[in-house]
């Protein structure tokens, strides 16, 4: 319980700060949604040691399922998102179980192949997905419980919903990463052979990591479609997987807050730079190279380094404030 008590205020503060500080509410919404998506990636990469190019599958799947279930089944947005999450978990279990049959570079190749597959499936099923044009007019069907209506029809309400989702999902993932399961994943990442010899069925640990990762990514993908009122085909493109990976790596994968920084960095800097410099991705490439060379723990480790430096310089008072 103490874990939640410690992190809940930090997460709420992040959600509030994003709302108050960032220039637009849609930018803040996007930052929080992508923070969840980057977190899904860092569970796989930072904890299970799995470099997967498959995150776009779950992202796109979540967007389509949340949209289609609202359109065709008429369910409300919350049920739509939950169905999307369940679909994400199921597909992640399948993709995970197949991909982890190979290790190292072959695992990476398999995740690439699955993403390509998902892309062409989405492209071909254009009656459902809208194909190249994307799925248009995604609704946000309001929730109606005993006459009590919850609608997310304004951008403020939508932001509030995304912020609540963000806090809850992050709390859940903090719980998981601090659990024995999280520690076992780290052990498997460090030495798979030893973990197997000690009795761990490594395969199932990786599959479970995939399930957690896939379900939160699909949930966030669903929110993204609701946010745009649109589910573009680009959601399931390989480049989306890359984008997610870069976010997770630049932010730092060993810590859940790295995902927030990664998302903040890519979404906000991207928004600012793209306004006056079309080729801003150029800069991103440079920053990624620098991160990999000099800051393996990502921005979050740089930030902790600064905190440490400050606390050494100004004594223990500031340490308490930061932690």
């Amino acid at each position, binding site marked *: 319980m103490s*874990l939640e008590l410690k992190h809940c205020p930090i997460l709420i503060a992040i959600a509030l700060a994003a709302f108050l500080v960032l220039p637009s509410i849609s930018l803040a919404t996007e930052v929080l949604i992508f923070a969840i998506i980057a977190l899904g990636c860092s569970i796989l990469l930072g904890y299970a040691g799995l470099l997967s190019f498959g995150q776009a599958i779950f992202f796109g799947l979540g967007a389509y399922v949340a949209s289609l279930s609202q359109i065709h089944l008429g369910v409300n947005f919350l049920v739509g998102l939950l169905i999307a999450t369940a679909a994400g978990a199921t597909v992640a279990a399948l993709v995970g179980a197949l991909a982890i049959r190979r290790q190292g570079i072959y695992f990476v190749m398999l995740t690439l192949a699955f993403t390509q597959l998902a892309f062409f499936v989405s492209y071909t099923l254009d009656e459902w997905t809208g194909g190249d044009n994307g799925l248009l007019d995604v609704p946000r069907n309001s929730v109606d419980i005993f006459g009590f209506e919850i609608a997310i029809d304004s951008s403020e309400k939508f932001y509030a919903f995304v912020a609540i989702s963000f806090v809850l999902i992050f709390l859940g993932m903090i*719980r*998981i990463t*601090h*659990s*024995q*399961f*999280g*520690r*076992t994943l*780290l*052990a498997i990442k*460090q*030495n798979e*052979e*030893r*973990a*197997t*010899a*000690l*009795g*761990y*069925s*490594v395969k*199932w*640990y990786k599959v*479970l990591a995939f399930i*957690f990762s896939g379900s939160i990514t699909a949930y966030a993908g669903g929110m993204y479609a609701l946010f745009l009122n649109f589910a573009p085909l680009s959601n399931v493109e390989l480049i989306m997987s890359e984008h997610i990976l870069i976010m997770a790596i630049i932010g730092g994968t060993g810590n859940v807050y790295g995902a927030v920084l990664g998302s903040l960095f890519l979404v906000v800097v991207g928004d600012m730079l793209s306004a006056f410099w079309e080729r801003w991705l150029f800069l991103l490439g440079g920053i990624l190279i620098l991160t990999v060379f000099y800051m393996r723990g990502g921005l979050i480790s740089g930030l902790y380094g600064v905190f440490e430096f400050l606390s050494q310089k100004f004594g223990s008072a500031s340490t308490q404030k930061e932690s």
Partner: protein
Amino acid sequence: MSILTTNRLTKSYGEFKAVTDVNLDVQPNTLHAVIGPNGAGKTTLFHCLTGVQRLTSGRILFDNKEISKLGPEKRSSLGMSRSFQVTSLFLEMTVRENLQIAALGVSSIDGFRFWSSSASTVKKTAAAVDYALETTGFENRAETIAGDLSHGQQRMLEVGMALAQQPKLILLDEPTSGMGVDDIPMISDLVRRLTKDITVLLIEHNMGIVLEISDKITVMQLGQILVEGTPNQIKNDQRVREAYLGGETEDA
């Protein structure tokens, strides 16, 4: 009653038979060593016993259960733990965390507990971890990161990992490999002490240690058992001397 027996254990790679018709019989609470020159099939035998490799034919009985077809991760929960010839630890974790992970490996569910904090899960390993810390002499270094230990200490922890699982049988793969001469007694003392509580099967190429501490020795050559007996019998066996060309017997 034996704790581990193999019945005509054979492992071939294509045409080549690495291990042929090996019948081992390990008695409880003894130190049983398997020795032999390079290429004798010791390591292949070890891999078959730990489940890393499947046997081509034959059977392995552990504690009266047939385990020939079980994978390595299934064997530790039955009470069979191993160490590695090349140190294989979780180098970014502390000594204590290494042992906790080891201790929890024998349960099929504890590692999956994602809903409660790891601190509450590892509580139940306290006794096993303390036993391993004490037996290997790591009480004062429990919080050291495994990667920061000296090579000799890492070899000790390597054995400690197996101990934390509180096994019935422990399989040690050349526990002194790569150790300095001064550190070797540390390991051999430890191994000798272990037989009070558990059975030890030791694969070793250092003849000196084996003659000194074993209860029973199996000598392998070209994938087969050459001779079996007490250290005294082995020391005076002409065939063993020939197999080793008189070289290593004087190493002691």
